[in-house]
């Protein structure tokens, strides 16, 4: 029971932050379209909040789902630790909000040292509040990861058992010993908590270095080192939100299709690949830093490519196989889960193209970059989370959504969403740089299209929220009767 409470606490907090950040994002695009006037200082402050807010929102929601699923397998998981971690997350969020409003911090969420210390148009305390807020979020994240990691190690027998190493290398002996491998969602939990722990560690190193420099500017920091750590932390943290949310697919799709999804050797090996490639793909953020050691660039490209393999060969392929000719009823839950897989593939295609170094020369730091990660987040992670929410609501209410509701939601969130995303890709292909408060042509025109698309997305989302409330009310009534 308290597993559900933790899940809803995390998920609803995450979705609430997402909704606020969505409004901020629409404002930013409208400003770039020159439809509303936001001065550059305020623009960059809002953009800073929007960036970190969205990532933390998705992380909170995904961590909530994963925690619930781990607790179903491992009842000893203590909710107090989950709430302790949640408390740190929330404290971090408050500190970050204070740094932006009223602090006017505007150095963006993947800031590169010597930013935010040079050319700051906001007071120094805002920098401190931002950095401390980030550190608090990292501590919360590490608490979550350590709890789940400890639980998985205990339940499945160390790293060997958690990663099903014996199962992969000698299935027969494994089965004869009467052992069973961890279920698929536990692989997601294992990779998230293991890689997450490393990610948090790295985040705390760069965070501490920046906080120390903030207090004592005589402390030198190497900018190339800082950029490496910033992206090792930032890329991995953002990427892991997808692997948190994918647990919703592993459990939600079998529920919807009334088919089974088991751990297999390909699944285990695919997750081993993810475990490694998520961490070493981050080099692709430094392709244009020619000062990097060249071998890192090579590793970045090949691992960015190979990171896609477990996804397209096992997870997405398996998800499509589950749905194919299954007689599954389309509801908001199943629709979102399936559409999220499509979004993941499209965003992945854009990402893999940008991760190709000769292409990156043209696309690096253009609007193509937000194009691909908005695809991942809006039409991937968010849809997995919403899909999971609706599968749960539909089960509890014993009801599904009507065809008109599904169409309205779909047109808004997929149609409007596609328009919003295409604007980024077109602008990026046209060379419009990212993070420009005032964009050169054809930026503003495309930003106008994006704003329309985003408003349509918002409309679809509102329909879906209303429908969600309706289903929740219905399930309360169901529970009482």
């Amino acid at each position: 029971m308290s597993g559900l409470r933790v899940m809803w606490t995390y998920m609803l907090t995450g979705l609430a932050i997402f909704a606020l950040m969505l409004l901020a994002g629409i404002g930013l695009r409208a400003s770039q379209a020159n439809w509303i006037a936001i001065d550059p200082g305020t623009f960059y402050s809002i953009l800073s909040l929007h960036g970190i807010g969205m990532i933390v929102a998705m992380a909170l929601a995904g961590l909530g789902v994963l925690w619930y699923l781990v607790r179903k397998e491992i009842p000893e998981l203590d909710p107090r630790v989950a709430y302790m971690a949640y408390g740190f997350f929330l404290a971090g969020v408050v500190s970050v909000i204070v740094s932006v409003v009223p602090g006017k911090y505007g150095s963006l969420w993947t800031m590169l040292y010597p930013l935010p210390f040079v050319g700051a148009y906001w007071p120094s305390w805002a920098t401190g509040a931002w950095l401390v807020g980030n550190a608090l979020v990292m501590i919360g994240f590490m608490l979550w990861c350590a709890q789940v990691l400890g639980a998985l190690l205990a339940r499945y027998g160390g790293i060997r058992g958690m990663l099903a190493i014996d199962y992969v290398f000698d299935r027969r002996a494994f089965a004869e010993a009467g052992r069973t491998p961890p279920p698929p969602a536990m692989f997601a939990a294992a990779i998230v908590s293991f890689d997450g722990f490393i990610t948090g560690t790295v985040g705390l190193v760069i965070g501490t270095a920046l906080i120390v420099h903030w207090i004592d500017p005589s402390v030198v920091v190497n900018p190339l080192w800082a950029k490496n750590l910033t992206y090792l932390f930032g890329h991995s943290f953002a990427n892991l939100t997808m692997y948190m949310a994918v647990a919703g697919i592993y459990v939600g799709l079998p529920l919807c299709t009334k088919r089974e999804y088991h751990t297999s050797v390909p699944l285990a090996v695919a997750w081993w690949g993810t475990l490694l490639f998520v961490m070493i793909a981050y080099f692709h953020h430094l392709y244009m830093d020619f000062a990097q050691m060249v071998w890192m660039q090579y590793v970045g490209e090949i691992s960015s490519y190979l990171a896609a393999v477990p996804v397209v060969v096992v997870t997405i392929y398996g998800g499509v196989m589950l749905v194919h000719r299954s007689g599954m009823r389309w509801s908001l839950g199943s629709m979102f889960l399936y559409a999220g897989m499509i979004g993941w593939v499209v965003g992945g295609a854009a990402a893999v193209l940008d991760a190709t170094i000769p292409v990156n020369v043209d696309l690096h730091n253009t609007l193509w970059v937000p194009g691909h990660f908005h695809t991942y987040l809006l039409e991937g992670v968010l849809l997995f989370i919403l899909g999971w929410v609706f599968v749960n609501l539909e089960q509890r209410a014993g009801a599904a959504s009507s065809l008109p509701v599904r169409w309205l939601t779909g047109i808004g969130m997929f149609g409007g969403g596609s328009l919003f995303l295409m604007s980024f890709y077109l602008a990026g292909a046209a060379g419009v740089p990212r993070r420009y408060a005032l964009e050169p042509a054809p930026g503003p025109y495309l930003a106008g299209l994006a704003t329309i698309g985003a408003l349509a997305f918002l409309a679809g989302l509102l329909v879906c929220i209303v429908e969600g409330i309706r289903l929740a009310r219905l399930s309360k009534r169901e529970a009482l009767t």
Partner: protein
Amino acid sequence: MGNVGPIFWIFCAIAVLAISSMVLLGNYRNREALPQDVVTSSGYAIRRYWFWAVIAGSIAAFFLTIPSFPYLSAAANADAIHFPVVAQQYGFAAPPVVPLNRDVIFDVSSKDVNHGFGIYAPNGAMMSQVQAMPGYVNHLRVRFTVPGRYLIRCLEYCGIAHAAMQGGFDVR
């Protein structure tokens, strides 16, 4: 759109292919449901080929792209002309004129924070770019074949006037 036009169309093609194939595969309407093991037996067989195709494609793409990497060897530096470029909040100190039809290497650095040295051709298309980092020098080799006025834009967020940070040079 310059060099990146074909990439955009490739992306659109992949996106359309992915969306349509996944929608078709997922749509069960007018088709009878099948038991799971029937789907998986043919699914797993196809997946074997799919896996090897993806792996082979990834490795092939990797090796095919290596010759176009912008990272210079010392030998490549030998007979090109060097031009220093220094970025700082909020402008570029760049050479006013760059020769046409010759290998040119920009030695790019920064005086304060990270900036991006982005070269835009006279027709507005992005030509090339490299990061400008304080404490380091990045060497970008370019060969200009079209004369005219080239614009420099900053491609790494550097502060409040990031969007206004520009420079330029003539190629002739």
